[in-house]
């Protein structure tokens, strides 16, 4: 009976009900997006960092990995020290640099990663194989397109290029043996990877024995934070950062987005709350006589409240899937804007859909909607019956 009355009331004012559903849907879409934004980056970044199983990263003291051009001196002895530790399963040194590929029309410049192919964790092989000798290189699609080459071809590359003199330094003929996708680079960023010794040699004495970062994979069961602290004490020239530390840094740098998410999410909730409160208040005010009659014939107050709250809940129920769909569409759109951050790894999503996020958003909104409906309906159902009926009769 209560359900029938609630449904009938909603159907009686179709335009109002539809607008309210739309309003709540937009509210829930925004709320969902903000919940996704507040946790998306972090989780996306965590997934990225752990994708290859490296829990620690070592960089020059006071810097974050690849945050600056600084390099670690005597990197080979550092790597040997790390490999000698019982808790360490694998160490991947990486040297960052640039390579210039001279073409008839000029030179194409690309990021270069010097790696040890056997333990590297910077790219995934799409076609071909890893470099196995000094003059072999792998490249991503962006670079292959730019230089007009494919797997199996050779290409001239140099570590230094002077645009004024059009002169190359550290030039070599390299054999492209694989097509790869770089995990930590942007999709459109031209990049190649080659043996670290080759990249060092091409740069001459400047980068001799150096590395930009060393990534460390620990054995199963090793306490990551304890090992991190031990390495920091053992190696004063480097900063050792764990995944958690890296995430903290990311949180700090991108705290703006999280705070924006909280603020906009709160605003969405408040607006949704106000909308439902207004809807219920108007609905109750219109039916104040009817409510008084129901009370007069013996219908309990909580049942009347339940009927009205049910109307609010019905609007929420219909609006929720609509809001979910709208939220996912707008999240995709907003993500596509933010994905254009220069240098952002391809795999980072700002808006990451997690079912728990959807439930959180919908749960919050449902709670808000119910709360919004309770007070005005309780107030309406608590008016003095005789006075209300007399006023309604006169009105």
């Amino acid at each position, binding site marked *: 009976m209560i359900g029938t009355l609630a449904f009938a009331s909603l159907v009686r004012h179709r335009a109002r009900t539809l607008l309210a559903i739309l309003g709540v849907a937009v509210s829930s879409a925004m709320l969902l997006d903000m919940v996704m934004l507040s946790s998306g980056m972090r989780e996306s970044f965590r997934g990225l960092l752990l994708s290859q199983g490296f829990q620690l990263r070592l960089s020059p*003291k006071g810097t974050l990995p690849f*945050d600056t051009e*600084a390099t670690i001196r005597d990197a080979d002895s550092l790597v040997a020290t790390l490999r000698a530790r019982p808790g360490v399963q694998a160490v991947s040194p990486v040297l960052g640099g640039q390579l210039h590929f001279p073409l008839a029309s000029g030179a194409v410049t690309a990021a270069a990663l010097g790696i040890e192919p056997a333990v590297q964790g910077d790219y995934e092989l799409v076609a071909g194989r890893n470099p196995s000798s000094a003059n072999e290189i792998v490249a991503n699609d962006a670079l292959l397109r730019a230089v007009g080459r494919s797997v199996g071809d050779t290409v001239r590359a140099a570590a230094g290029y002077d645009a004024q003199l059009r002169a190359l330094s550290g030039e070599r003929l390299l054999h492209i043996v694989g097509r790869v996708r770089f995990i930590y680079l942007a999709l459109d960023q031209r990049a190649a990877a080659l043996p670290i010794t080759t990249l060092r040699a091409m740069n001459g004495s400047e980068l001799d024995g150096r590395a930009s970062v060393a990534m460390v994979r620990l054995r199963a069961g090793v306490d990551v934070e304890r090992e991190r602290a031990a390495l920091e004490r053992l190696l004063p020239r480097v900063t050792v950062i764990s995944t958690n530390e890296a995430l903290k840094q990311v949180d700090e740098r991108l705290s703006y987005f999280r705070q924006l998410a909280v603020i906009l999410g709160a605003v969405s909730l408040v607006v949704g709350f106000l*909308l439902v409160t*207004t809807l219920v208040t108007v609905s109750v005010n219109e039916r104040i006589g009817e409510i008084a009659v129901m009370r007069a014939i013996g219908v309990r107050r909580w049942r009347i409240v339940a009927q009205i709250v049910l109307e609010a809940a019905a609007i929420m129920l219909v609006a929720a899937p609509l809001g979910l769909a709208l939220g996912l569409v707008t999240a995709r759109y907003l993500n596509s*804007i933010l994905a254009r*951050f220069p240098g952002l790894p391809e795999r980072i999503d700002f808006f990451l859909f997690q079912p728990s996020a959807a439930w959180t958003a919908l749960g919050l909104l449902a709670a808000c909607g119910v709360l919004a409906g309770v007070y005005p309906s309780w107030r309406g159902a608590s008016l003095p019956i005789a006075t209300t009926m007399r006023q309604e009769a006169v009105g």
Partner: protein
Amino acid sequence: MNVLLALLPILLTLHATSAQESSRAAEPRSRSIAIDSRLAADASLRIGDRVVIAAAPGEQGDTVVVSGIVQRRADPAEIARGEYRIRTHLGQLQSLLGYGDRVDRFAVATRGPSATTDAVARINAAAFGFRAHRSADVAVETSQTFAVVSRFHRAIGVITIVASAIFLLCIMLLKVDERRRDVAALRLMGISAPTIVRSVVLEASAIAVLGSLVGVGVGLAASWIVNRHYQGVYRTPLRFSLVTGDIVLLAVMLSLVLGIAAGWLAARRLVRTPPLALFGR
């Protein structure tokens, strides 16, 4: 040079002695450096303190005196960077790093835009191993991040406006609907529909104007709070939020238009319903 600046935390060996403690064996006259305010705060350094700067940890380096504390620039590109910065005499840094007679870049001030164009062309024609760029072009390249953030904000703004329009229409419809009986009584008395619509629109306009004023006030307050907060978080003088006359005008015009449109739509809907139907008969 950038390397050095980035490595400052380990380079700065903090032998912060006060100027009065120089009664040791006579020291050569120390050169001075300027440090950024963040470093001064974190390392508790004051003007007059002596510190040692070196190219790598453990090296002998140079003893210098802190002669100035520099406020960080309001540069968006720097806000999220945690590194410290110091300013030294050029020759001293070149010597410390073994850089020789090299610099990373130099800046040229010209006497106006046409002089800039001319200077860029002449420098590039004669340059040997370097190129000249306009500062404005460099700024465009380095502010790509903020172009993205700008676009994001704009998208959020559009979504918010659309959402607000829907909410406004919904609420206006509800509130105008509440007075259906009053409207019915007026219609039965002979008051014309256009008169009723005009009165509702007038009311909606008044609410929109008031709402806009309150909104501008809230926006100004929120902008102040945002700036204070993020200036503290990132320790920068950069202004994150700027409320300009154009923005205020846009916001007020938009809310007026939306408010009046919502009121008009709601009123029209009501006057099109026969009066007796409004009474529920």
